[in-house]
């Protein structure tokens, strides 16, 4: 009958969503471990940051593998149909990857590599598709974290870091100002970027005095 075909489609859809949910839950656990790992930056002296970044890589490998399982479930061209399921966790992972890039450039002094591109994040994710807005939200999470890091670097005696952060945050700000944002999540998070910038400026100003 007409109805039974529809019912079958619904059942298949249901099973696919359950499969997605299961992989996403694993991803969330890994991303949680990543966040815990990188939360140590606020207590880690600059000389040990390279090591901290290095030791996060097995976790990023796990992420890559889990995303590869996820890719196996999503039918071609149906990324956005299920996007809501992994949006949040992907933003967080993207945030972690861009944080790692910033820290590594801070250590190496190659400021041109401080900002990781969307393509580069996606590559680290084993080529898993990354929505532009999710990548941008990840960057805004990064600036929030860096504003806090600028305070803690001073406590740790690393007086160079806040200056690097300020320059990076200023660059991001001018970038974001180019975008025509609608009144959505991105817009609201962008508003807090202004606040984060101000905080970093105060730290650098306090150090000058």
């Amino acid at each position, binding site marked *: 009958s*007409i*109805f039974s*075909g*529809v*019912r079958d*489609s*619904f*059942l298949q*859809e*249901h099973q696919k*969503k*359950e499969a997605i949910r299961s992989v996403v839950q694993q991803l969330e656990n890994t991303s949680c471990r990543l966040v815990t790992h990188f939360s140590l930056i606020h207590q880690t002296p600059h000389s040990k940051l390279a090591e901290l970044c290095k030791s996060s890589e097995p976790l990023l490998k796990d992420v890559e593998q889990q995303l590869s399982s996820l890719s196996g479930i999503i039918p071609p*061209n*149906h*990324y*956005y*149909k*299920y*996007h809501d399921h992994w949006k949040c966790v992907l933003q967080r992972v993207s945030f972690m990857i861009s944080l790692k890039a910033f820290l590594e450039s801070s250590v190496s002094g190659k400021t041109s590599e401080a*900002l990781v*591109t*969307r393509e580069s994040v996606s590559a680290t994710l084993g080529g898993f598709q990354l929505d*532009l*807005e999710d990548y*941008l939200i990840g960057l805004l999470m990064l600036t929030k974290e860096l504003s806090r890091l600028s305070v803690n670097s001073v406590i740790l005696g690393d007086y160079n870091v806040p200056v690097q952060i300020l320059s990076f945050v200023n*660059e991001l700000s*001018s*970038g*974001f100002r*180019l*975008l*025509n*944002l*609608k009144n959505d999540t991105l817009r609201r998070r962008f508003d807090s970027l202004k606040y984060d910038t101000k905080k970093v400026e105060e730290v650098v100003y306090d150090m000058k005095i």
Partner: protein
Amino acid sequence: VDIFLKYQEELDLKHEKQERLVKLSRDVTIQSKKVIFQIHRHFDEKEDAGENKNEDILREAQQKLDFIRSSLIRKITEEIQFEDVGKFHKSYSSGIQEYLEAVMFLYYKKNGRLVSFAEVQKDLIYSNDEASSSDKNYLKFPLSVTDYVLSIADLTGELMRQAVTVVSNGNTTLPFLILHFLRDVQTFFLGLKSTGNYSCKKELSQKLSTLNECVTKVERVCFHIRL
């Protein structure tokens, strides 16, 4: 910062496409609603208003639907043909649901049963007259099963209204046919619910409860006919 210029372009293109799709979807909604009203007016007439006049009205409704399909929905299809399925779904789904409701209503009026998913999907395949895409000589609108199902629920509201209308014109047969149909739909929805954690749980639950109300109303109508 240069890279942000690229991001700016990508975001702007997406927003503009969304905007165009929302506008097309609204047009589809308005036109489809007109078709539904037209069919309702048809039922307002006495049953014996004459076959010819009724057929005229149905033919006119069919023509309007053909127009919606070949102009508005075709434009939507062209907009999304190279896009990921689902990326812009939210922008046009309300229009498509209204269109489906109108198609189903007209089809029920003509054939006394529900039009199948395959039949509706078939109507939404267009020949591709653009020379550039030589590998693919047709365009297909990606119809979603969820939209199809949600439209069925909306259809029951129209049929309920119809049952109430015709009884005051002395038609005492149609309400029983409609009641029978609505109960089939109700059983179908209940069945969907018991297949487990189906998609769009919340929307379906809402539709199911208005569907239940519709059934109850048609039952009242039949009750008064029987007495």
